[in-house]
């Protein structure tokens, strides 16, 4: 079904990542020199997770004759924002810099990307908001970058990948969560992998589709990590958003972890209430992809009932990934209350920076406290 009301908040939008050439002006002279001299600037830093010509990577009517899908602000307006009447859209720029092993290079590029996003996207379209891209190789440096970029309140989230080096709940990453909590930034885990490990517990799957399907299991592992490690106890106002994860796996996870917690409580005694309660409070999930039988409204509604909360789903288009056709971005059969929650109330309630008093972001310039 179409979006029936105006003012939706799209929590997962993918403008095309900048080319290395486009990033050169944002790098210091050492990195500019390295990228040119070593021909690194000729590479696209495409993530293995999203082969550009794969059907999933872009809907046919969102591809252009030249240039990457989502590579033009006008196209983003006319294809991703206007048709859905969106008031805000959160840009998750899926750039492969974080997959590099060289921490310094990954950091320099990520920093450049964040600056590029501010100038080339946020400055040019007032409805856009963004996630801060950081490599997790060195949490201290990630924190420095978060602190630097957080001054620009149009950045509402920190972007991390679902499959990486270490489970994200682990203590070495906690400085990132502390910084995010302090600055009112959401932690956004997005589908995708730096392939530091095999995508499956039994190894390297052969097909793209398997890697993609396996993302949901990776999200489950990340959730268990946040839960068991006590991240939500340590950072009580932290919000975690799972982006492009699917959500129909949630009930089974809530049931199983709550049951096993009863017998395993002594191992993780800082978990002071049912995992289902903790997750319903701290975790949100973007709408796309809707992994349920097409046209089967009953099953989807039953699944939402099983999830046991109407606060968890956040509207998303996942533009330009091909998750739906035409403007049928919402599944059929949702009540108007549910639609209102998904489109507007839940995102606003989840992202503190979207609620910035008085300046709810309609004026781009007044939202920038500092520019690099």
């Amino acid at each position, binding site marked *: 079904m179409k979006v029936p009301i105006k003012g939706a908040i799209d929590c997962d939008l993918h403008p095309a990542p900048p080319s290395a050439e486009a990033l050169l002006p944002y790098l210091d002279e050492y990195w500019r020199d390295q990228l040119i001299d070593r021909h690194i600037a000729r590479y696209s830093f495409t993530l293995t997770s999203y082969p550009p010509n794969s*059907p*999933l990577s872009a809907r046919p009517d969102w591809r252009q004759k030249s240039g990457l899908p989502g590579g033009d602000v006008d196209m983003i307006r006319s294809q991703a924002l206007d048709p859905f009447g969106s008031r805000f859209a959160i840009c998750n720029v899926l750039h492969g810099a974080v997959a590099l092993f060289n921490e310094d290079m990954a950091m320099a590029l990520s920093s450049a990307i964040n600056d590029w996003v501010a100038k080339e996207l946020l400055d040019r379209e007032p409805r856009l908001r963004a996630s801060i891209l950081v490599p997790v190789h060195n949490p201290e440096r990630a924190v420095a970058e978060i602190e630097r970029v957080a001054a620009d309140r149009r950045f509402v989230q920190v972007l991390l990948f*679902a*499959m*990486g*080096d*270490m*489970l*994200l*709940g*682990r203590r070495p990453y906690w400085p990132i969560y502390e910084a995010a909590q302090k600055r009112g930034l959401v932690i956004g885990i997005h589908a995708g992998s730096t392939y*530091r*490990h*095999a*995508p*499956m*517990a*039994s*190894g*390297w*799957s*052969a*097909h793209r*589709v*398997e890697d*993609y*399907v*396996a993302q*949901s*299991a*990776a999200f*489950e*592992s990340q959730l*268990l*990590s946040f*839960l*068991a*490690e006590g991240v939500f106890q340590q950072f009580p106002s932290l919000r975690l958003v799972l982006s492009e994860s*699917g959500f*129909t*796996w949630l*009930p*089974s*996870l809530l*049931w*199983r972890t*709550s*049951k*096993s917690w009863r017998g*395993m409580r*002594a*191992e993780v005694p800082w978990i002071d209430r049912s995992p*289902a309660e903790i997750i319903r409070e701290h975790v949100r999930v973007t709408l796309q*992809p809707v*992994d*349920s*039988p*097409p046209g089967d409204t009953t099953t989807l509604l039953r699944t939402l009932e*099983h999830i046991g909360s109407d606060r968890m789903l956040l509207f998303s288009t996942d533009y330009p990934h*091909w998750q739906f056709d035409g403007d049928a971005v919402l599944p059929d059969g949702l009540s108007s209350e549910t639609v209102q929650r998904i489109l507007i109330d839940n995102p606003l309630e989840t992202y503190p920076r979207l609620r910035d008093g008085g300046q709810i972001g309609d004026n781009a310039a007044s939202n920038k406290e500092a520019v690099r």
Partner: protein
Amino acid sequence: MNIPVRHATAATKLAIVDCDIHPAFRKPSDLYPFLPAQWREHMITFGEHLRQGLSGQLAWPRMSASGLRVDAFPEDGPPGSDLELMRRQHLDANGVEYGMLMQLSKGGMEERNLEFAAALSHAINEWQLETFVKPEPRLRAGIVVPQEDAAFAVKEIEHRATDPSFSQIIISPRSSDPLGHRRYWPIFEAAQRCNRPIALHVQGFSGGHASTASGWPTYYMEEHYAATTGMQNTLTSLVFEGVFERFPKLKIVLVEGGFAWAPALCWRMDKHWERLRIETPHVKRPPSEYVREHVWFTTQPIEEPDHPQHLAEVIEWLGWDRLMFSTDYPHWDFDDPQHTFKFAMTEGQKAKVFRDNAKALYGLP
């Protein structure tokens, strides 16, 4: 120590098939008579060579006594090692008509030395027969084979295929490659030819990869959950490598991995199969159809929603003919047949889950 025997009343005594019972050695040397001298020596000198840092114990310690029920310890030996106690406390007390043995360790599935693995596999299959199945006709063994050595696995399967004491083949879902990989296909071919299902029981030891896509969990609470995500991964691989298309009579049982996750995974596989179909032309039908035809799930550890009726809805989606009751005796998270399901079931549903699905799958009289 008094071990209470619970007497089920006649009205509640349903003859059941328990699809997950764990036998155990009284002491490690119980296996030695079944090993050739060379491998007995090897076992004593070097022991098993597994993919973890600790020897003889799990790197995520369990919450109780190596994951065993405190009330299932016999006088001598660990839980599961005393057939008499197993009979009294479980088979008799719970009306078990048939019990499927799941022997998880010392069978070579996780052994890095493949020659040793072959010897272990042969030995464990002999041990199951002599120690449990021959004295107790209600029990059935599984042909434990090291999946990483497909050639040997096929030979051992063929060797045991004529013996009805062996109801299925057991391999590890934590394999060194996802199980859909073509190097495991000879095992699927043998299973199909010898008309035995293949059981994949959650496994405590890695086949070479971390238990999650982002590395190793910290707490047992996470590692316990990883059994579920691992099963999802394995099923995804089997579907998308076309294993069910290529082996149309193959039957797979997922043991102790839960089942409430399965409908959602099927929906997800269907959706993205549809979008990315050109990548996998060998997968001719929606994944959920293959799962419905080829895959069974055991019930334990059963999921427990706040509203028990929700689980009934999930089972509707999964199919009442997909589910087979299991207790996981004598492990800690044992499901008692009288109290496992917290919502009302019809007689027909009970008969299927507690008995008939398993009897049909395993060809039990």
